């Protein structure tokens, strides 16, 4: 069992990145540990209430990933700037399982990782 860290910087729907990340993470979770760090615009991904008409619901996919064991963390500076406040890591506007923690978590994730994938448009 190895560890994969995925770094995202795009929000949902604006690019294919979030969806690709889900496909990669799903495949990786079968045999490996998966970390996902949501950075810059990617902090919008776990927002609740997403209701896309012609696209798959990206938020739900990340919620599922978290419940399937992926560790998903968001950058607090990026999140606060964009209007997501957290108390002890928990943001009321976020879907369950995804926490707003610290940018240092990114460094920790990288240190413990065997492989890294950053996706952005």
């Amino acid at each position: 069992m190895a560890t994969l860290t995925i770094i995202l910087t795009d929000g949902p729907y604006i690019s294919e990145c979030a969806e690709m990340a889900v496909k990669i993470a799903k495949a990786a979770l079968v045999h490996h540990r998966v970390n996902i760090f949501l950075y810059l615009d990617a902090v919008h991904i776990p927002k609740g209430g997403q209701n896309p008409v012609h696209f798959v619901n990206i938020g739900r996919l990340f919620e599922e990933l978290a419940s399937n064991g992926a560790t998903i963390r968001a950058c607090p500076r990026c999140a606060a700037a964009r209007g997501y406040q957290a108390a002890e890591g928990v943001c009321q506007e976020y879907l369950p399982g995804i926490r707003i923690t610290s940018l240092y978590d990114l460094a920790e994730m990288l240190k413990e990782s065997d492989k890294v994938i950053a996706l952005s448009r």
Partner: protein
Amino acid sequence: MEHNRQLHSDAKGSRVDIFLLTKSPFSERARFCMRLISRSENAVLYLAGDGVYMLLEEALENLPLNRIVACQEDLEARGVQAKDKTVVPVDFYERLVEDAMNEESKLYAF
């Protein structure tokens, strides 16, 4: 298991470089990725997203690649035909992860 064997049989040295490219051919990232591939002794290229447009580039044929693997749904959406030597598996992401997470491989994503 069989697939793992395939990865190892690719290897001239011990290490395999796995490249995941999701950017279109004339982006700076794609060009940088091509530069890295050109100096790799043992490269496998996974094309997803706009990366599949690379299959329209003749330059791709001159790169030292052991294998090119393209994502079927991304090809179909864009109307891009895979070339003869391109592998288009039904389980693109499973294969990508298997190759990428292999101890003997180094992973690059652009």
